[in-house]
Each structure stands twice: as structure tokens, then as C-alpha cells.
């Protein structure tokens, strides 16, 4: 086996171990080493050179970037998420069946939709959707994002807030939390105009807070 492949495989194993141990700093160091190693693989995009190890290399590279995306969620680093996702995308879009589809593809695509929603980049959200094949819309991960966006646009904030419970993947929780925050800000903005005053209970219900304390905390944050 190609020594470079061996090296990469070993590093991935170490990365996964560290990831399991939630040792994210080690993870990110390992990851950047991995990325550098990947630049030595000629079969990767944009070159797509047809080497004997091409399939292996492509699969490994894809896995690494998938891990990178997931790690970025863990580290709550949206820039890294975007960067890594962009680099991962050609492996999903442009490999033309050289490698079998990845099981992580839709979860990560879905997560990306959520990220765009959170960042309020609606145009790009729709661009991404357009790029997906029609049947992908039936996929649960994608559907989740699409429905959320619809609710968000319609102003059905209660559905957005309750969707957190139905998130299909653990990485989504991070984005859902952020989304909830976005939605609460929207509600706060509207209620400021709409009501002279609100009772604690009404407010708690409207903002979907489970306790007074949470509400107080939020009010403190906003003001």
C-alpha cells in the first residue's frame, strides 16, 4: 500500500480516537496535518488525475472533510464549517460515481442548509436546494431544513421553536439553538412594537421559555 495512504489512514484513526475522547484541540491539529497531506494526492479535485489509488484517496479525503465539518460544529466554528463544507462539496457533486455515495452526505448537506438559515443567507439556501437532485427533497435531513425555512418565512415561529425536538441529527442541535435565538430576537422585535406590556406568563409562552429564569436571562441579554 502507498505509504502516503498508510500515513493518512493512521492519522485518521488517531483523529477519530481523539474525537471520541472529545479532545478537540488535538483533533484540529491532526486535521490540519491531514489536510496538508491531502494536497499530495493528485486524484483529488480539481485535478481528478486517474491514479491507481484514486478511489482510495478520494474516499479518504471525503471522510477527512466530513470529519472536519462535524468537528467544526463541535467547536462551534461557523467559518470553519463553511470552509470545510465548501471543500467537501466537490466530493459529493463532481466525483461522477468514482466513489460510492457517503452515508454522511445528506446529514451534512442538511446541516449546511441550517447554517445558511441561521446566518440568514436565504438566497444561498435556495441555491443549494436547486443544486440538489429532486429526490433529495424527500430525504429527512433535507426536508427538515426546507420545512424550517418555510415556517421561518411564514412567521410560524412556534413551529420553528418546537422543531428543535425533532432534529434528525445531533449536529443539528447546535444550529437549532442558534436558530431559536434568531427566532426569539424576531419575536422580541415584533412584540416591542405590538404590545405596551406583556405578562410574564404570556411572554414565557410566546418565547417558548420553560422557566421564568430563562426569560429573565433573555431579557437581560436583549437589554
Amino acid at each position: 500500500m502507498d505509504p502516503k495512504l498508510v500515513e493518512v489512514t493512521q492519522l485518521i484513526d488517531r483523529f477519530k480516537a481523539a474525537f471520541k475522547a472529545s479532545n478537540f484541540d488535538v483533533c484540529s491539529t491532526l486535521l490540519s496535518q491531514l489536510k496538508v497531506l491531502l494536497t499530495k494526492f493528485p486524484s483529488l479535485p480539481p485535478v481528478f488525475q486517474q491514479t491507481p489509488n484514486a478511489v482510495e484517496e478520494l474516499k479518504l479525503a471525503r471522510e477527512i472533510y466530513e470529519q472536519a465539518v462535524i468537528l467544526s460544529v463541535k467547536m462551534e466554528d461557523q467559518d470553519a464549517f463553511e470552509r470545510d463544507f465548501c471543500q467537501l462539496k466537490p466530493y459529493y457533486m463532481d466525483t461522477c460515481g468514482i466513489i460510492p455515495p457517503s452515508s454522511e452526505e445528506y446529514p451534512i448537506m442538511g446541516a449546511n442548509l441550517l447554517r445558511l438559515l441561521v446566518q440568514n443567507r436565504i438566497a444561498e439556501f435556495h441555491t443549494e436546494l436547486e443544486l440538489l437532485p429532486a429526490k433529495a427533497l424527500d430525504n429527512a435531513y433535507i426536508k427538515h431544513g426546507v420545512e424550517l425555512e418555510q415556517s421561518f418565512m411564514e412567521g410560524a415561529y412556534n413551529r420553528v421553536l418546537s422543531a428543535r425536538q425533532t432534529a434528525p441529527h445531533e449536529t443539528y442541535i447546535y444550529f437549532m439553538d442558534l436558530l431559536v435565538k434568531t427566532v426569539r430576537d424576531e419575536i422580541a422585535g415584533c412584540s416591542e412594537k405590538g404590545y405596551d406590556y406583556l405578562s410574564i406568563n404570556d411572554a414565557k409562552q410566546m418565547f417558548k421559555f420553560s422557566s421564568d429564569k430563562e426569560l429573565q436571562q433573555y431579557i437581560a441579554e436583549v437589554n
Partner: protein
Amino acid sequence: AMAAAAATVSSAGGILAMLHEPAEELKLHALASLNSVVHLFYPEISTSIPAIESMYEDDEFDQRQLAALVVSKVFYYLGELNDALSYALGAGPLFDVSEDSDYAQALLAKALDEYASFKTRASKAMEELENVDPRLETIVERMLERCILDGKYQQAMGMAVECRRLDKLEEAIVQCANIHGVLSYCISLSHQYVSHREYRSEILRCLVKIYQTLPHPDYLSICQCLMVLGEPETVADILDTLLSGSQDDALIAYQIAFDLVENENQAFLLNVGNRLDSQTPVDPKEAAHADRLAKLKGILSGEKSIQLTLQFLYSHNRSDLLILKTIKQAVETSGNVCHSATICSNAIMHAGTTVDTFLRENLEWLSKATNWAKFSATAGLGVIHRGHLQQGRALMAPYLPQNGAVGGGSPYSEGGALYALGLIHANHGEGIKQFLRESLRNTSAEVIQHGACLGLGLASLGTADEEVFEDIKNVLYTDSAVAGEAAGIGMGLLMVGTASEKAGEMLAYAHDTQHEKIIRGLALGIALTMYGREEEADTLIEQMTRDQDPILRYGGMYALALAYRGTANNKAIHQLLHFAVSDVSDDVRRTAVMGLGFVLYNEPEQTPRIVSLLSESYNPHVRYGAALAVGISCAGTGLSDAISLLEPLTSDVVDFVRQGALIAMAIVMIQTNESFDSRVGTFRRQLQKIILDKHEDTMSKMGAILASGILDAGGRNVTIKLRSRNKHDKLTAVIGLAVFTQFWHWYPLLYFISLAFSPTAIIGLNSNLEVPKFEFMSHAKPSLFEYPKPTTQQATTSAVELPTAILSTYAKAKSRAKKDAESKAAANQEKTAAEAESKAANQEKSTEDASGSTSGKAADAMQVDSSAEKKAAEPEPAFQILTNPARVVPLQEKFIKFIEGSRYVPVRPAPCGGFILLRDTQPSEAEELVVLTDAPATGQPVPGASAMAVD
């Protein structure tokens, strides 16, 4: 695997994302990837330009140049060439000059442009400009080196010339294997593409330097360059060295001299001749050397070539007196203008042949010319005897003013005779100058002064002789309209191409005087002084073209045309076109359009295209100018486009446009025949029709008469050529045509056209400058270039009869065939075959005959044959053997081959034409020489003409 073959990224997003990775290696990798996909994803990448730019600007970053390259490419694809170039410069060595991509090519071109324009600016600016961007210079240098390495020498030389890098030019030339070929390429390059005169001289000087370092220098080319540079000393040195060398060297010296003479630069030739005088070395072989020197000086003085030309034109004269006779009969009643035109036409037809039979036969008719017509008629003798240097004065003696005896003859014939002397000695006037000066000083009659001024100007063309100038100036200051006009022109002729400050003096006088004629003469004269000076003339041109007086603006047009003659300079063309459509004076507009012809004669193919719109102008003056412009620049080319443009103008609604078009057409068609272009035949018939038509007006009749003369000029052995075979301009010819066009205002100036005639001959000469018997080949059908058929007796009706003759033969053959349907068919065929055979034999005989004397009837019959019956006749031979000296028209020159193994070998392989010095490979054997004679009638003036002078 099939699918894998198609795998490409659909977006540069991934790579752009990688650009933002914190790790340096990843950034580099991303940049490298971007560099390879820029052409696909530049729109996406363009949004990230600021990021990449900041990488370039980051001094710490070690791949700044790669970043610059990527940015440059993106800008290139976005169409921002300036930004692209500035970043490409930042890319340093990463910008690959040998890359074969559109990007690299476009940016290299841009870089070259920038650099060249910078260098041009730098050379013009008085004060020091800031230095050129060294990175730009490096790129250009790398590109030049690349070209030299790849063996693309022509490209390298072109770039070096454009960028004013003579060091690189030299480098390219020296490294090239075929150095002689490359040098001549450079010479033509400098003439065609370098529009700045001074810089062109610089290039030529550089080329001469390289030439001189070669083991076997090409002295022929060197001397041509030196002539352009105006360095007679060096030429004299070279000639002197060659004369002291072997026999072959001497031959080359002679050849150089002939080539220089062809360019007609009298002042330069005199200079070379004088320098040869002063340095005759004392030498044991002095006798041989002196002999050679004498021969060489004979050539340089022009005497040898003039003498040979004269002999050639006399012995080969093929003029068709019947045409003249027809004209004479037709215009008997048409008045003075046509009468004069006929005399002029005769002079042109016999220019340089010394054949004055027509005049002798029609003395009474001739004597009808009075006043200025007589002046012209007498001048016409000068045209006929052009180049008759020894006999010239004797010939004209009866008409010349007798010393002291005023009133002996008519001033008109006396003036005309002085003008004639000028024409005879044009550009070779050392022998006659003194006589003309005396004649000028001894008279106060303005007509005689007029003739003398023109004569003096012609004889001392371009010599800038101070004394002569003073003499003419004195005439000018008498402020006589008639004499002053000629004085102005004469001064211009004298100072041709000197850019002398005398022009200022002339301009001042032009502002002073009240006489339009004088102003016009001076305006043309000033223009003449600026001949060939290109940008040096700009100030004066500016001054003249801004003048309030339309006559001076008109002179300004001439100045523009002559200063930029044969350069196809864009600026000059632009200016002329501007005046052609915007000036308020028709004269100025007409001349501006005509000037285009002079500026463009080095690229005749261009002219019809450039003036085609103008030729459809609503303004007849502009149409007239367009016709003449085409005539001048396409002179003697028989160019199809030119003929197509002129054809409709010959039947224009305005009479003078028809006149101009007819004359221009004749100038274009001179020395081409019907088998070369069928429209030549049509045109000849059209001329005849116009001349014979009683209802045709005088203007176009005059045009037709002159056109007939020009078509058959010089006994059908001369053409009009404004460039020598070495692609330099023929000064006398250009000047001749320029003054000729002035006939619009003054008919006697028509005769200046004779200056533009050059013989179409190949004359081979041995080391004694004798003409040996010797044969060479013309690899073309003889009929393509043969003399036009002489007109038949019933010339008056031949135009109508020719087609009917064909028809009747055809009809007869047809009816006979029908009648004798089967019985005689076989016999008939046999007869036809026999006929064809005999004709073929006839044809063969005629081709063997070197002079090509084919009976016109036989050839006519052949034509009837081939068109009416099936093509039974044998095909015409594809070549022709010519004997020295032979008529070879310009278009034929490229078909001329010397026969291998012939006794005589030319010292100059190409271009093939004119005077050719021959090396004798069997010098021990006796040579067979061709004896050429002058006119038998030398010394005998036309008796009737003297009668004419008396009356």
C-alpha cells in the same frame, strides 16, 4: 473509468475555501489549483480577488508571484488588460513568455505595445522621461530571447524594431543562419513598418554596420542603404575598393552604380562621382583602374543608362502611327485643346524614342499651333528626344533664342525650346545648366523666362545649386505672373527634397504677391522642397494647411503627399482624408484625395479600397481626385481593383471627371495588353469611340487623346513606375507625376509625365559595358506580355467590325456545316485541322522571334479560331526565349530565369530587370555583340517645326 474521465469540478468554491485555510501549505495549494482552473471559473474567482491581492501584497508570503499571476489571469478574462498586465509584471518569472495560451499571447502583445509606445515617447521627448518599468523591460527582453532561441528570427526582429531595441535586433540578425536573407528582410521591414524617418535611418545604419562585418558583404544592399542614409563618402569608398579588386568586383561596382542611378537621386550621384575623382590612387595598374573609373563615372553620371535606354527605345519602337492618324483626323475640327492634346499625345507615344515621323508628316497641321500651344508643341520635342544628351542642343537649335538677337523667333517656341532642353536633360543637367542660365539672364520676355525656369529646374533637379537658385529668384521678384509661376516650380525642382529654409522665403513671397499664378507655382515649389522629408516637413505642412489662402492649402496638400510619398503613413493619410472631406475649396479637396495616391504608392492594393467611397462622392472634384489617386498609386500595375474602380468614372456625368478617369486608367493599364486583362481591349475601344464621337465634349476628348498617348507611351516600351526594383522611390518619376497633375491649371505641364517613364527592358552588359548576344527565359505565356496588336487600316470602324467579323465567320462555318451536313463533314474537319496546324506553326515561329513580331492578322485569326470553333489549335507554349536586350514588362520580371549553363551569369540574382551586369564564364572566347544605334535622324530638326517657329 469512463465516468472518471469526465470528472471535473463544477465550481471553484472548494478551492476558494481552501484559500482561507490558516495553514500556509494549503493556501499555496489552493493558489496553484486556482491557477490551473482560472480559465473555467474566473467569474467565481473574481469575487475573491481582494483576498488574493492581499496575499500578493503580503511581503511575508513566499508565493506572492503566484498570487499575482492568478489575479492577472482573472483580470485578463474580465477584459481588464491594464490591470492584467500590471499583475503579470508582478508575477515575475512565473509569467511564461513561451506559453501558447490566449492569455499569454494577449498580455505579451499588450506588454510589447506598452513598451514600444514608451520607447517611442522616450525617443521623442526632449526632457528625460521617468525610466521604463524594469519588469516590463525584462518581460520584453525575455520574449525576444525566447524568439531568438526558438529560431523565430523574423518575429524577434519585428519586435526589436518596434521596441527600438537595436541591440536585440543585431543579436537576432547575427545569430541567424541565413544572414543575407534576414538583412534584406530587415531593410524591407524598416521601409514598410517604420514610420519615423530618423529611426529608420538608425536601423539602416545598424544594418550597414552588420553588413560590413560579414566576410562577404553584400555591397549592392549596403550601397542602397547608404543612399537612403545619404552617405556618399562611404559609397564612394566601397566603389573605389571594388574597382581596385578583381574583374568580378568591378562588375559589382558597375551594378551598384546602375542600381543607384535607377533611384534618380541626382544630388547624391553627383556627390559620389565627385568623391571618386579626388581619390585616384597612384598605382602600377593605374591604366586599368583609370579605365574602370571612367566607366563607373559614366554610369554614375547617368549617361550610360540614358544612352542605352535611348538606343533600346529607338530600336524597339513599336508605336502605332495609325492611332495618331485616326486621332488627328477625328479632332481636325475640334479646336485648339484637342489639337494640342494630340501633339502631346504624339510626344508621349514617342517619348525617348527620337522618332518624330508623325510631326514630319504633318507639318502643315502642326503649324496650326500658336502661342502657348506652340510653346507646348516645341516642348514636346524635348519629350521625344528625352535623354538625347549629345544631340539635344543641336536638335533644338532652330528654336532656341539666338544670343543677343531678340525677336528672331517667336518667344513661344523659344521658351518651349528651353523647356524642351530641360526635359531632355531632366535630372542630368550638368552639361546644359550653364546654357539655360545664360538664356534666362539674357531675356526679359516672360514666356522665355517661363520656359527657362522650368528647364533649369528640370536640368538641375534636386541639386540645390545656389547660383541657379538666385537666377530663378530674380525672375520671381519681377512679379510677372507667367514667369513667376514657372519660377516657383523651378525653385521647387531645384530644391527637391532638401527641406531647405529657402522654403520659408518662398512662402513669404507667396503671401506678398497678388498673382494667383505665382502663388500656385510657389505653393507647388514649396511642396517639392519637402519631398520625402516625412515628419521634418510637419511644421511647414501645418503652416500651409492652416493658411487662409486656398492656393497655399492646396500646396499644403502637395507637401503632405510628397513629404510622405510612398510611406503609407497613417497620420498623413488621416490628414489628407480630413481635408478631402472638410475643406471649403474644391481645389484643396481634389488635391487632398489625389495626394493619397502619392502617399500610398508603396501599397497600391490599398488605394482602391481607401478611395472607393470618395470615388462615389457627390463632389466631382473629389471623384476626379479619387480617379487620379488610383492612377498614381497603381501606375503600371494593371491592378484589377483599380480598373474596376475607374471603369464607372470613365463614364461619369461630369466631363472633367471622365477626363481624369481616362488618364488614370491609361496610367494603370500602361504596358498591359488584352490577354492580361480583357478590359484593356475594352478601354482602347472606348477611347477610340470617345475620340470619334462628334458629340463628345472637349474635356473628355482631351482625356481620351492623352490616355491613348499614355497607353502606348515611349513606343510601347516604357511604363510608369514610382519605385525602383530595390523598392526605393524614384525621385524623378514621383516629381514628374506630381507636377504633371498640375496640368489642371496649366496644360504645358502635361509634359512632365515623361519624367515618370522608365523603360521596360532587361539589358545585359559585359565588363566593357557592351551588350553581348545572350538568351534568357520568360516562364510565362508569350501572349500575356506581348505588344498590343497594331490597329488595322480601317481603324475608324474596326471597333464595330471586329465582332461582326467573328460573327460572320462563325455563321458561315455554321451554315456551311449545315449545308454539307454529312458528305463534306470529314473533309471540312481535315481542313480545319490543317488550318490549325499551319497557325500553330505560325505561332511557334512568332514565339521564336525574340522581338515577338507576330502578324496581327494571324493572331486575330487565332482568336476567331479558338472562340468560334472548338479548340483545335495547339496550346500556346508556356515559356519564351528572349534575347538581350529584351522588352520585359514589370509584371513579367518575376517570370524571368537565366538559362543554366549559359555563357553569361548575372552578378545580381534578383531582382531581375533593368541593367544587369553579366559575368563572362568564357572570357577567352570572342564575344558576339549586339549593335544598338541611335536615331538616324540625329541632328536634323523637324523642318516644319522650324517653319512653325518662324511664323
